[in-house]
């Protein structure tokens, strides 16, 4: 069933268009930067962009910083929101279930397809950003200085970028799980995606709000920027670990809710 879900994902033009758009945004930024040579001041958002001017090998990190705040969560929410609700609105959900595909099995396959999509998207962004960064900017992969000012070897840099890519991928799963749950509640993929995005925007707003400090550690987006800690020396694991833990909790809770709702639901679509 997982293979079938992946095949469906691959055969949808939308999948490839959204990944292409995700890759295109950092590329656009890189082109403007290369032409104007005007970078943001060091320390300003998005992270790493000022450093890219002197070393293009850091561009994958900058690219992650560019797509992370909006584009990536939107792409993930759209795919996750479509998972069950999309089948329902196309009328295929009933035919899959009487084929028969067990309801739990279908949900697991949808989740697997979602994880694969998220990872492919993040890796695609990193890889295209590396190619663009090293070809447009001066590139000294052996001479990258990290946020703390220490030098990184090229293997170290690759490992740290891989770590950051993995962390960003996992960070997206919280939003994905919320969208997947909503997708079992409604028959409209749009409503499910927008609902998850609303949760994401609310979380972002609360993270920035000083008065909400009490709930802040439990918000899904609280540790999203912790991947920057991969570029400190030594790597600051505290927030990374907390970030992973909170995502796992969100995924577990919303998957359990999605499962409980889906297996007991009357399929009337």
């Amino acid at each position, binding site marked *: 069933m997982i293979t*079938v879900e992946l*095949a*469906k994902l691959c055969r949808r033009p939308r999948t490839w268009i959204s990944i292409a758009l995700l890759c295109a945004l950092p590329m656009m930024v890189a082109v403007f930067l290369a032409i104007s040579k005007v970078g943001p001041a060091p320390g300003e958002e998005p992270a790493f962009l000022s450093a890219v001017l002197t070393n293009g090998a850091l561009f994958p990190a900058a690219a992650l910083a560019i797509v992370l705040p909006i584009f990536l969560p939107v792409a993930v929410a759209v795919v996750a929101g479509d998972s069950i609700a999309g089948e329902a609105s196309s009328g*295929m959900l009933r035919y899959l279930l009487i*084929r028969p595909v067990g309801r739990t099995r279908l949900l697991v396959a949808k989740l697997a397809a979602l994880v694969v999509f998220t990872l492919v998207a993040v890796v695609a962004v990193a890889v295209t950003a590396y190619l663009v960064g090293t070809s447009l900017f001066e590139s000294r992969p052996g001479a990258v200085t990290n946020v703390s000012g220490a030098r990184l070897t090229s293997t170290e840099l690759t490992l740290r970028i891989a770590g950051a890519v993995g962390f960003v991928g996992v960070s997206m799963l919280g939003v994905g799980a919320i969208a997947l749950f909503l997708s079992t509640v409604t028959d409209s993929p749009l409503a499910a995606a927008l609902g998850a995005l609303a949760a994401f925007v609310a979380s972002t707003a609360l993270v920035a709000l000083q008065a909400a400090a009490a709930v802040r550690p439990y918000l899904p987006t609280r540790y999203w920027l912790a991947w920057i800690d991969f570029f400190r020396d030594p790597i600051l694991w505290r927030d990374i670990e907390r970030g992973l833990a909170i995502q796992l909790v969100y995924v577990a809770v919303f998957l359990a809710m999605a499962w409980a709702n889906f297996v007991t639901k*009357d399929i009337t679509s």
Partner: protein
Amino acid sequence: MIVTRELTKRYGRMLAIDGVDLDVQAGDRYGLIGPNGSGKTTLLRLVLGLVYATAGEIEVIHRSVPKHLGQVLPEVGALVEGPSGYGHLSGRANLRLLDAAGPGGGRRTRRTRIEAALERVGLAGVDGRPVKAYSLGMRQRLGLAAALLRGPRLLVLDEPTNGLDPHGIREIRDLLRELNANGTTVFLSSHLLGEVAQLCTRIGVLDRGRLVLQEHVDRLQAETGRVVIRTPDSDLAAALLDGRVESRTGDVLVVEHPDPAGLNATLVGSGVRVSEIGPERRSVEDAVLQVMGTGSDQLDRATPP
């Protein structure tokens, strides 16, 4: 093949299915008749485990549903509330995905099974166009092909001839007869009484969620004990059978008589030329309409007391 006991389904405050004791036997061509909104589709969904019963029991192919759905459904082919498919893919790609999604039927035989199913429903020559470019009739045929993909023992079909032209309807009727003759039990729903009367051996009538009639079609078409005669010498015949003629319209007489053959001999012996003679039968339509109220889409004003 399908047995339900006191089956009840409530959606919120609406009672969709109300104490239904359905009994579809192996080898039946069972037609479920009912006006729109009478609960036909809900009953089919209950049988297929898509919706869960509020009360009562369901047994399909001798196993309890929804508990043993995983063992029951591989032997069932179904069409529920219209066919559907992934619009951007071709019909064959749709069938391939659907076939690969569930158990049973290996990858090696997939292509042959798909081609055989398409052949059966008259879509063998279909090209690679996406399903969204299909006509309603083609979609219906594709949905039937999906239902036939794994040679099911039981076919559950919701309005199988919907969207087909008269030729298509005849083809599908012949196809279902043929499948049934080869041992497939057919359980279908329709709001077209004529359709069901022509195809089915048994019918069930659903009215506002209740099964108000479940009977063999030939028993519904029972003889009424009257004989219909068409004769050019109708005046002579009427005089001869005086007292027993119930009604007379032009050259057609309806006569109270138990034995058409004997009556024919009497008439011919008396010099009456008979062009048609036969027992009067109750029509299925009369039998059904007698037990059935109006549909839920017809909302008459409540009559003031």
